[in-house]
């Protein structure tokens, strides 16, 4: 892998990703009124964005390693390796969402903010699991397209997944916050 090819493959995507991140940020700014209604929700945002980025880029990077090892290919996508990876990332999103909800509640209590624990944990769990499922599907599609085009999956998968992850997660948390606010 030469630096020139690396920059050539990555740079257009990085510019697109910057625009995508601005879009995610606009959604974030549009949620400002909900943050004042549900105390403690704003604490969740960096944690859940990072969670999505971490889990899905790790998933993409693992698939990239599998591609370089010759274990997985465009013709040979649906094998046991991919299934194990999918199960692993879904279980991780479920567990980590619960951990985020509990930790945010505890730290908010320590800092004299009084959030509603059930509301907070339900919002985080819904957003985490729904965005996890969407992003897993998206990862498989992106990785398949990258394999077909013959690019290096390591260059493409990371930034694309991180940015799509941000956008999808912002929408999921917006939707689940509105839903929980209406139901509970």
């Amino acid at each position, binding site marked *: *892998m030469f630096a020139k090819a*690396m920059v050539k493959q*990555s740079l257009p995507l*990085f510019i697109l990703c*910057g625009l*995508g*991140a*601005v879009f995610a*940020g*606009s959604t*974030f700014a549009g949620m*400002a009124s909900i*943050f*004042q209604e549900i105390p403690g929700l*704003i*604490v969740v*945002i*960096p*944690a859940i*964005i*990072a*969670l999505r*980025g*971490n*889990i899905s*880029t790790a998933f*993409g*990077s*693992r698939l*990239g*390693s*599998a591609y*370089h*090892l010759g*274990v997985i290919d465009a013709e040979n996508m649906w094998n*046991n*390796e991919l299934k*194990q*990876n999918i199960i*692993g990332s879904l*279980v*991780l999103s479920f*567990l*980590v969402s619960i*951990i*985020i909800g509990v*930790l*945010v509640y505890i*730290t*908010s209590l320590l800092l004299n*903010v009084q959030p509603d624990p059930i509301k907070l944990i339900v919002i985080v769990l819904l957003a985490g699991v729904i965005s996890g499922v969407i992003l897993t599907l998206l990862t498989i599609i992106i990785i398949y397209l990258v394999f077909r085009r013959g690019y290096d999956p*390591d*260059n493409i*998968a*990371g*930034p694309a997944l*991180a*940015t799509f992850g*941000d956008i999808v997660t*912002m929408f999921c948390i917006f939707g689940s916050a509105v839903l929980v606010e209406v139901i509970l």
Partner: protein
Amino acid sequence: VIYSWKNIVKHSLPLLTVCIFIEIFAGQILQGKQEMLVLFPVFLISIPVINGVGGNIGSVLGARLASGLHVGSHPLIPAENLVFTHYRIKHYAFRPFFALLKKVSQFVVYYYPNIAQQQLCIKNKGF
């Protein structure tokens, strides 16, 4: 089968928990400055952007290094042997540091031969 979901969860969860602690620290800072952030939405917009740039470049580098380690050709040095063994991975992970050390010492010897000679003399006396 290289990957199993139990291993993935077991290896990722402790690190992710540490990451969540740090992120929640960041989130509590946002909570403390909430009035200012709502007053100036530009800062709210720029949060995912700034988060994204570092994460993107870092994750690309990490993914490429991980692939290089898996294949057995560490990308920082020319590949000699594309064999996937644990010995080679450990060996290759430390090799760039030794290579750097060697380059630095060569540089020192080339441009400051006096120091190198003195070092050599001390070494010889010691022996």
